[in-house]
């Protein structure tokens, strides 16, 4: 029993070793650090693979539609089994290609001469090989695989906001950024302590880390609402584009920081095997986005996201982002709960290895 705990603790230390770059360890600006999602995804991936055996499922006939659906949105539970895609390794090009119907799921001949599952183009030419794996012990990895899928969704949300953020040229206020990064920095300190502590201390440090992350999130949620209110107040003869762009860039910064806080909290709760708490954190994020999307502000003519949309200087590629994308973000977050409910179902994992590229 003692031995088992000891192994679990060592595993945990490994899982908590998430600050890798110099900036991540010592920096004070969260937006200058790595976005951590790849690190978290890598860690969960390793843990998941150690907790169950996977059987390579070569016969994918009858699953083409489900596989395509899972690659497009990260996972599919339309039938009895749950399919989760290695979302972070499928390029946006493949996802868009499948959505547009240019690519499809099928099989392609390997150099060795056998057929392998693959993404193909209109001329049946190979785009990418993948492997479909079936979990021997689905219940053991359900929580990991749901978190994995959630982290990849948060990574995508974060990247999309980063992208649309480049369209606004507001002023950067470093003091503001640092103030909003503070709680993350405190939490980082506790996580680093936890990664070298014994199990009792570890739990204590992780609880402290979560308190800081929670406070940081509360600050961000209220800041974003305050900025939106200022945006709504921008009217009359003194309204200026310059002022509005500054507000929009603040809103962007908040929106970029939030998934990082949320992602880390969810990750830590998953390590502590507190799925209900992880679920609650995502529920709060969902609620905040929903409020921005639905509650009318100022003169009650617009919702916050509509107002941001009205003032946003889009580039062609990002047109209508704030009107369209948050809906998809909400769906992605909502799916976490749905996934956790799939307790008795088979789990398939659509795995992509980079070396498979020809």
């Amino acid at each position: 029993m003692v031995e088992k705990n000891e192994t679990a603790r060592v595993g945990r230390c490994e899982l908590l070793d998430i600050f890798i770059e110099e900036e991540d360890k010592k920096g004070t600006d969260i937006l200058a650090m790595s976005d951590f999602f790849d690190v978290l995804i890598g860690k969960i991936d390793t843990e998941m693979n150690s907790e169950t055996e996977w059987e390579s499922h070569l016969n994918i006939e009858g699953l083409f539609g489900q596989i395509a659906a899972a690659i497009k949105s990260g996972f599919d539970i339309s039938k009895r089994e749950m399919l989760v895609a290695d979302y972070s390794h499928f390029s946006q090009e493949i996802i868009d290609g499948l959505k547009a119907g240019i690519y499809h799921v099928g099989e392609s001949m390997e150099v060795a001469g056998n057929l392998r599952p693959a993404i193909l183009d209109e001329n049946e030419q190979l785009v990418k090989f993948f492997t479909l794996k079936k979990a021997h012990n689905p219940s053991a990895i359900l929580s990991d695989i749901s978190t994995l899928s959630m982290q990849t969704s948060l990574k995508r949300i974060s990247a999309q906001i980063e992208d649309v953020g480049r369209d606004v040229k507001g002023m950067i206020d470093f003091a503001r950024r640092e103030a909003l990064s503070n709680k993350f920095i405190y939490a980082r300190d506790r996580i680093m302590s936890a990664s070298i502590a014994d199990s009792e201390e570890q739990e204590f440090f992780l609880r402290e880390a979560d308190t800081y992350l929670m406070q940081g999130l509360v600050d961000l949620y209220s800041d974003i609402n305050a900025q939106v209110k200022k945006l709504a107040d921008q009217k009359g003869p003194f309204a200026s584009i310059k002022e509005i762009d500054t507000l929009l860039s603040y809103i962007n910064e908040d929106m970029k920081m939030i998934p990082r806080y949320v992602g880390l909290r969810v990750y830590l709760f998953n390590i502590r095997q507190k799925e209900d708490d992880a679920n609650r954190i995502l529920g709060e994020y969902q609620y905040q986005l929903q409020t921005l999307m639905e509650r009318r502000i100022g003169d009650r003519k617009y919702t916050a996201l509509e107002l941001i949309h009205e003032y946003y200087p889009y580039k062609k590629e990002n047109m209508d982002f704030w009107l369209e994308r948050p809906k998809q973000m909400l769906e992605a977050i909502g799916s976490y709960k749905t996934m956790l409910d799939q307790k008795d179902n088979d789990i398939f994992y659509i795995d992509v290895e980079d070396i498979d590229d020809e």
Partner: protein
Amino acid sequence: MMNDETKERRCKFCGKLLISEKMPICKRCKLKARNKVGIVANMFTIFYGAKVFVGDKENGDFSAV
């Protein structure tokens, strides 16, 4: 006819989807136009203000600005 009314409307200047504007222009483009008018009005004042101040001597110099 019903279709024309419910058809999505986009800003004539930047192309974004409009929500409830009566005019086919989004809030940003509207404000940008107004800010520009403001600048032009200011320049107009400066130009004429300066012209009155400098007098006839340096007539024409302003066209280069």
